[in-house]
């Protein structure tokens, strides 16, 4: 897993992607531009975060799920 470690915590790139979603960015292209991550990694990461229930996909865009919000909250504490 590239975005989520085996212990369930997001990696650095996973945290960047989740934070970008929290800030309202929804497309892979926007997130890649804002985080500086390569687009292929953002696409792969969003797929992984969605499968883990941390993000929801709506067409070509994504948003943070309630579990994603919760997880980000624990990281900032």
């Amino acid at each position, binding site marked *: *897993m*590239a*975005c989520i470690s085996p212990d369930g915590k997001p990696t650095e790139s996973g945290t960047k992607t989740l934070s970008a979603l929290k800030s309202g960015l929804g497309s892979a292209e926007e997130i890649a531009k804002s985080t500086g991550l*390569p*687009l*292929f*990694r953002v*696409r*792969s*990461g969003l*797929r*992984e975060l969605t499968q883990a229930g941390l993000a929801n996909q709506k067409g070509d865009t994504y948003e943070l799920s309630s579990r994603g919000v919760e997880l980000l909250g624990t990281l900032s504490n």
Partner: protein
Amino acid sequence: MEEVRERTISLPRIGEPAPAFEVATTQGVLKLEDFKGAWLILFSHPADFTPVCTTEFIAFAEIYPELQKRGVQLLGLSVDSVSSHIAWVRNIEEKTGVRIPFPIIADLSKEVSLAYGMIHPGQSKTETVRCVFIIDPNQIIRTILYYPLTTGRNMDEILRIIAALQTTDKNAVATPANWRPGDMVVVPPPNTQEMAEERLKQGYECVDWYLCKKKLQAK
């Protein structure tokens, strides 16, 4: 053995869509479609922790910034595991100071190797030969290079091909032998006699009507 021979008969060809894949890499699970919109160089190497491959990985890392400027991503592949790839790239960095910035596919099942015709049983039944597939932003194969196990690849040629393909796409021209960026390009041959006659009046540098070159405008 027979199965490998049979399955490698159907090789991907220039101008055809690149075979899709979903694979474990050193940067997570990646699909071919994740690279859509970017140029992609998919290349295979025989095995981790081998001398020629190590020199190639260092050389690929050295041209990585130039490839990034040209919108090109790199994706390596061998039939080794992710753990082996990680150990190898860490060793390269420790011993040479060169960080490998691109992902490497762990093709333990040989699914991608067989789909792309990377295993040549006459060279090795288990290792991939040195292949380079240049795939365009629409995921069409534009160039295929094969090198034997004993010969390391030429990075200048790979950069030259990328520059040539991008120049062709942008300007609807072809590039002559030994072309380098900045050199004159070949104007596509005319389709009619009228076009052939007009061509000779257009100020191109022509050997004859079928071989005309022009300078591209600097942008």
